[in-house]
């Protein structure tokens, strides 16, 4: 009963949030002083041509009417047509989404691996110089944003010691036909190890740049939580049973220490996804964020609108997923 109630409240706030995002983007981009239609046409175009196109895209109506028309379209799954690329927005956006999703998820894995390892090391050697080193590393990693990490990585692994590709998603020379846009996933399923290696070679640096700040947060929060758990009685009891430090940390403390950090890591993961916008630009990675920046530069209103709404939806879904995971992992809630 309470669970259903919580779900309903959640659903309503999600709708309100998405609606708010749509309204704000709609209002913001329609105060653009330049005329996007005029920019699309060759210099010699007549006023009549402009008017015709404006009518076609609905720009001659009031903002309020435009919003209603757009909303009506969205209800039927129609997000309009891109002005600069002249294709349906939904096709364009869904075509790029897999690239961004793969990048974000690979980054998440890297962040959990690095952050978890740092947290466990710091806990294992707590109150020693090693823990101090973990603290300093995490503090430094956290104060530098993903954009700067990306540039530093380009210098390190693209120029100084060129082992990774600094731009693109896949080498054009591979010339392989994918049936979906989830290249990495598809390559994994088809066991094409050469393709996997090439994809990872492209994806590694942008993913690492996105992962470093999140890894630092995981290291800090999880270590804090682990250290608090290590003082609890059941951990002491496990020690008297003859278990060593490593077992006590990973088996007794870790499952309980993960829970309090989970929600915060979820929020931070949405920040990571937001970071793909500039990181994809930096590494010329063919994802949603890169397309978004092009759309803004080209004043492609329907496309901007579609991408922003998709990002907002993605963030909401991540938060929902984290909340569900919290319930699944917490025995107290699972049986409630």
């Amino acid at each position, binding site marked *: 009963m309470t669970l259903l109630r919580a779900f309903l409240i959640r659903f309503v706030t999600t709708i309100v949030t998405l609606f708010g995002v749509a309204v704000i983007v709609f209002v913001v981009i329609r105060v653009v002083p330049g005329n996007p239609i005029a920019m699309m046409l060759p210099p010699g175009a007549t006023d009549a041509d402009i008017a015709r196109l404006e009518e076609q895209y609905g720009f001659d109506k009031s903002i309020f009417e435009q919003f209603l028309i757009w909303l009506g379209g969205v209800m039927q799954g129609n997000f309009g047509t891109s002005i600069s690329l002249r294709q349906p927005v939904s096709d364009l956006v869904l075509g790029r989404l897999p690239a961004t999703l793969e990048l974000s998820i690979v980054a998440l894995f890297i962040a959990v691996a690095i952050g978890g390892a740092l947290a466990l090391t710091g806990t294992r050697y707590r109150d020693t110089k090693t823990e101090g080193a973990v603290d300093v590393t995490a503090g430094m990693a956290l104060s530098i944003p993903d954009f700067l990490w990306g540039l530093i990585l380009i210098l390190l692994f693209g120029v100084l010691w060129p082992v990774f590709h600094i731009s693109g998603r896949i080498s054009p020379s591979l010339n392989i036909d994918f049936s979906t846009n989830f290249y990495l996933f598809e390559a994994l399923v088809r066991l094409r190890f050469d393709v996997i290696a090439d994809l990872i070679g492209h994806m590694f640096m942008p993913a690492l740049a996105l992962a470093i700040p999140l890894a630092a947060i995981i290291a800090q929060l999880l270590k804090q939580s682990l250290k608090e758990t290590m003082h609890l009685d059941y951990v*002491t009891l496990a020690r*008297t049973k003859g*278990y060593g430090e490593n077992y006590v940390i990973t088996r007794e403390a870790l499952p309980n220490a993960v829970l309090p950090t989970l929600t915060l890591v979820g929020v931070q993961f949405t920040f990571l996804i937001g970071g793909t916008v500039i990181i994809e630009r930096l590494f010329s990675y063919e994802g949603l964020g890169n397309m978004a920046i092009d759309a803004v530069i080209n004043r492609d209103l329907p496309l901007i609108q579609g991408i922003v709404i998709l990002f907002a939806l993605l963030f909401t879904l991540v938060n929902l997923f984290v909340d569900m995971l919290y319930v699944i992992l917490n*025995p107290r809630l699972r049986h409630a």
Partner: protein
Amino acid sequence: MSGFLSIRNLTVRLKSGVTILRSVSLDVAQGQVHGLVGESGAGKSMIGKAVLGTLPRALQVTGGEIWLDGENLLALPHDTRRKRIGATAALIPQDPLTALNPSKRIGPQITRRLVDILAWTRSDAEARALELLGEVQIPDPARVMRSYPHELSGGMRQRILIASAFAAEPKLIIADEPTTALDVTVQKQILRLIADMQVRHGTSLLFVTHDLGVVSKVCDTLSVLYAGKVVEEARMHRFFMRPIHPYSRALLAATPTYLDPTGSLTPVPESVISAVEEEVRLHDVRFGT
């Protein structure tokens, strides 16, 4: 006398230099119950922790010996010592609400160490856990094995912890204020249960408590600890008839249940406390702390 557990001149200090235990000696004889009494802050829990090797990191043993089953634990390498403790000793903790891992079911919390440390088979361990849960009078043990700690009451959890402590037939059990965190009505049942289990399994038991009334019910011998020092070690009967140390006498007078259940509480007189403190100071001078 030299017991199954024999602590000799154990000294424990804070790393900053403050002394917590001053040359403590005590013995727990084979199959006997030894009470360790003192007010809170006297350091009685630290003795148990020193034996089990779970002292907080800020504390360290700076002198003495801990003999368990003919072996000086403090002379063993760290890992050997941990395994020796795991195989021969067990702890009944103070607070049953925090001593069970909230993310694990009860069953594995009893059986895992039998499988991991003592190399039992899974089915043996599970059979043993069921048997013990029955022995500590838990209704429907099979269901409890599948439960999570938050689904059980404090008394139930303490019973489970007792069962878990006895699971591997340890030769020594340290009970660290096992009834303090419980309701008064549950306290008596748990106390009787521990006493029964001790007799049935013939285990040596070090019973740490601040409550002389509890000691009088379950112990064979006792030590009185004050300010990190054993001020009196005696057999129960002799202690309650003729306590020697002034602090012991004062402690007895302040315990209503034993000598005069209806009488008023007499606080430990200032003069006694200052006398004991003087004694402790002299001790410090003598041992150069």
